[in-house]
């Protein structure tokens, strides 16, 4: 029985690990729920009360026409009460408008939920974006260079509106109403475009678009016989999108055989397609330029059941092996020239410390190692640079807005810790 328990637990664990809850689930749900009325109003009583009041008014009105003189009085306009927000947050530091053209890493000011602080890649605060209202950080994402912010209606990855660094809403192209703006999108390597894969009525389509602009769509034949759609378990997503190299990396992980496609963005042509046995890998990772792909072994996320014996970095062009890593290691991402990769060396799971390392892709040499007691909350690769921003949180901090610290990890292994604690986007 114990053996079966372990096997069942492992099977469920794998399923659950593939789709962990969003980090701010508790905060979002509690806030959304408690904002609603506790009970639906009783309209029957309301209707009855309204009818009663109306009846009384009619009777009084009729009586007044008989027993009272009409009073003629000037109408007085009552001043309209205007709701004004009462600031409760402690004063936050205003770093002024962010400089144009400087890539910034944004975090939410822990003292003012409507403000985002932008740090440059030396760790210096360079600007404050003042949004019109406090933000739910699970619903906002920055472009890699921080020039634009996407707002998701439900925190699920699709952006339905965009804000600039002045906190102004970017007008949406009217033709966008014809497109799946809610489709899950990722930022392309140019930091300008968004890319996504969508099942259009006539088949799969690769979408690229600029924020708030109408998308370009090309058909992509990843499912020529309709088997994926018929299977009912779609699981197709985009792991990487390089406008500069005209290449997208599509993957499918759906509990059956895993798939990886390298696709030309301009015409949707499939350049290569590779299949993998089910349940061997945890996920695929692609470099920003689409040149490298990673097959992360399922063992890297703690799967007990048999998994791929190694985590492998390959060239997307010919699928040749660049580096083979122990199966317990998982690759998080690459810097922009693919010289180094950020990896986790213990399973990246909620409320467990995450050990990490920065390794040279060509040699596997470890340049930096983190073996502290904190948990990885998020990371970013420097656009057109070589460094990473690593955001750490306490493992015991399961609050709605966990406090994070930001560490800049350079490709030579040196680090800079940004002073202060913030809330991640």
């Amino acid at each position, binding site marked *: 029985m114990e053996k079966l328990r372990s096997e*069942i637990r492992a099977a469920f664990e794998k399923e659950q690990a593939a789709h962990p*809850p969003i980090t701010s689930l508790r905060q979002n749900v509690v806030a959304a729920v408690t904002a609603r009325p506790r009970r639906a109003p009783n309209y029957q009583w309301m209707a009855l009360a309204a009818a009663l009041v109306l009846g009384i008014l009619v009777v009084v009105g009729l009586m007044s026409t008989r027993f009272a003189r009409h009073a003629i009085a000037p109408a007085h306009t009552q001043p309209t009460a205007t709701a004004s927000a009462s600031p409760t947050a402690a004063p936050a530091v205003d770093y002024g408008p962010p400089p144009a053209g400087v890539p910034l890493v944004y975090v939410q000011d822990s003292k003012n939920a409507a403000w985002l602080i932008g740090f440059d890649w030396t760790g210096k605060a360079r600007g404050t974006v003042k949004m019109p209202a406090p933000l739910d950080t699970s619903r906002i994402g920055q472009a890699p260079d921080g020039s634009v912010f996407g707002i998701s209606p439900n925190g699920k990855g699709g952006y339905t509106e965009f804000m600039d660094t002045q906190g102004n809403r970017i007008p949406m192209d009217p033709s966008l109403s014809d497109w799946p703006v809610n489709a899950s999108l990722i930022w392309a390597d140019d930091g300008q475009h968004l890319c996504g894969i969508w099942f259009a009525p006539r088949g799969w389509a690769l979408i690229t678009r600029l924020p708030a602009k109408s998308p370009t769509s090309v058909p992509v034949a990843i499912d020529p016989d309709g088997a994926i759609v018929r299977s009912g378990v779609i699981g197709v997503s985009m792991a990487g999108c390089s406008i500069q190299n005209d290449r997208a990396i599509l993957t499918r992980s759906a509990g059956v055989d895993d798939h990886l496609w390298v696709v030309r963005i301009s015409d949707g042509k499939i350049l290569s397609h590779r299949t993998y046995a089910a349940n061997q890998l945890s996920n695929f990772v692609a470099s920003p330029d689409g040149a490298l792909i990673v097959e992360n072994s399922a063992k890297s996320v703690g799967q007990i059941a048999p998994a791929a014996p190694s985590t492998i970095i390959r060239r997307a062009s010919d699928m040749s092996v660049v580096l083979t890593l122990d199966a317990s290691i998982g690759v998080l991402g690459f810097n922009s020239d693919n010289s180094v990769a950020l990896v986790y060396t213990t399973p990246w799971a909620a409320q467990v410390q995450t050990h990490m390392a920065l390794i040279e892709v060509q040699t596997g040499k470890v340049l930096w190692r983190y073996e502290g007691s904190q948990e990885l909350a998020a990371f970013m690769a420097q656009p057109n640079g070589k460094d990473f921003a690593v955001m750490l949180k306490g493992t015991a901090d399961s609050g709605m807005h966990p406090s994070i610290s930001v560490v800049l990890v350079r490709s030579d292994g040196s680090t800079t810790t940004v002073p202060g604690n913030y809330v991640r986007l």
Partner: protein
Amino acid sequence: MRRTETGELSFDALIGPHLDAGYRTALAILQNPDEAHDAVQESAFKAWRKLHQLREGSPARPWFLAIVANHCRSERRTRWFSVIRMPEMERVDPEIQTENIDIDRALATLPREDRLALFLYFYLDLPMEEVGAVLGVSPGGAKTRVYRAAKKLRPGLEMD
């Protein structure tokens, strides 16, 4: 904290710790993270409205997970896309259910309620009393259901 005074803070204290388990239960049933997130939010709203039905001293976890499970069952019955996303998978021939069978595939073939029973007992580690409360059966009934579901995975299994 009295439940009659439940506001955001007390709701968070009472139900908040179980939202993660609620999401995981919804994911186990719906097998779609987006739908699971929606389900846990809708279930939390139902819990918010029905909070007065939770008796003083009763554990909140099985009560909330039962709401989640019921909501997911309802969703699967009514939403058209569940038909597209989650078709019934092929049944595995009992003849090949041996010790060496791939547990993932075997779990995928189990009826939904059997799978839920295993999930609650083996993954969430709920005691039988709470498994029963979520499934709407007695603790004895829950034990039988878990045992029968486990036996479908391992025909020769003897319950501890």
